[in-house]
């Protein structure tokens, strides 16, 4: 070609190399995955799937056989498939809650667990219907004896509160660790340990069943 025969070939080579650098940089950027924040979203919703209406008429004073309908959800943003476990713990005013600084779980007794494999970006939301089915109030202390959760009845030992005030349900998110082959409280994200937990308080100052509807 006339251009090649008359012009400096170095210009042509420089143009070609410049284009190669630009195109291959674009190819590298296109094929390299972006770093992203790895986390879980963990929530509990009320009966209308809103962050409200957790108790009928917003009365946190629960009675025996009062049905409560919540929804518990987890969304996986960890970038791959994860095995998660939600642990329900029973606490009162003196219970030590999970510690966000030391990333330690609550020492409260565990009642039930919910397990699930979650894909990346998948949300697992399940109904959490519960009621206290038996409780006693003696000597200024209310003790919950049995509870029904998702149609399963559980016998409970040692869950009491002074005058029925400040019971709480604690939900913790545990994640399967492939290196230890066990569930661990929380997860690691960019070298840091992260945890997620929820708690909902309620009272039971009058354990007797509500009067039947007229």
């Amino acid at each position, binding site marked *: 070609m006339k251009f090649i025969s008359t012009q400096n070939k170095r210009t042509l*080579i420089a143009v*070609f*190399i410049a284009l190669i650098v630009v195109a291959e940089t674009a*190819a590298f950027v296109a094929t390299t995955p972006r770093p992203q924040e790895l986390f879980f979203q963990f929530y509990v919703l009320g009966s209308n799937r809103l962050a409200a209406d957790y108790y009928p008429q917003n009365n946190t004073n629960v009675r025996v056989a009062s049905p409560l309908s919540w929804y518990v959800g987890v969304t996986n943003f960890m970038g*791959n498939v994860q*095995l998660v476990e939600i642990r329900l713990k029973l606490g009162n005013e003196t219970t030590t809650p999970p510690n966000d600084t030391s990333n330690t779980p609550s020492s409260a007794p565990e009642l039930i667990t919910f397990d*699930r494999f979650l*894909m990346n970006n998948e949300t697992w939301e399940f109904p959490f219907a519960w009621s206290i089915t038996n409780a006693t109030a003696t000597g200024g202390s209310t003790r919950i004896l049995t509870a029904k959760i998702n149609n399963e009845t559980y016998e409970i030992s040692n869950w009491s509160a002074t005058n029925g005030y400040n019971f709480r349900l604690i939900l913790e998110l545990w994640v399967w660790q*492939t290196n*230890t082959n066990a569930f661990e409280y929380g997860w690691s994200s960019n070298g840091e340990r992260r945890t997620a937990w929820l708690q909902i308080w309620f009272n039971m100052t009058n354990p007797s069943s509500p009067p039947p509807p007229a």
Partner: protein
Amino acid sequence: MTRASDWLILIIAILVAVTMIGPLYPSAQINQPLQPSFGQAIVAVNNAEAAGATPNETAPLVTLLNKALELNQEASSLPPNQTEQRNALLSSVNEILTNVTNQANDLTSTSARRTYTNKIITYLSGIVVAVVGTFAYVLGVELYQRYRIKRTFQMRVKAK
């Protein structure tokens, strides 16, 4: 003097070498499990994802894993005297998990090959773009020179 084709061959050789040395797919290092079944299965699925398996490909495996979880919970909730039923359920769980692990391993190989091929194609596309761009540059310069020559011969001398 070095020819342009020599430079092209050299660049292609460097690109191929870089591609071969570098990781072919995001190599999330997942430790091998200490225990079988669930640990093995989740590691296998994670490896498939790291090799480039799409959510559509891993979704059936996750469904099977959740089925195994359900059966496992069912087995653990059985009363102690129902040993036969529990063993049958646990056997099904192991069967599902073995199946998932095998499928995930196959998926890892397929996905790794596909990711490698896509990467090669992407990098080769870069070379093609550079070649086409260089020819466009040559053509542009050629057309510009012709235009300049044409304009030179169209010039008119005007007396002041």
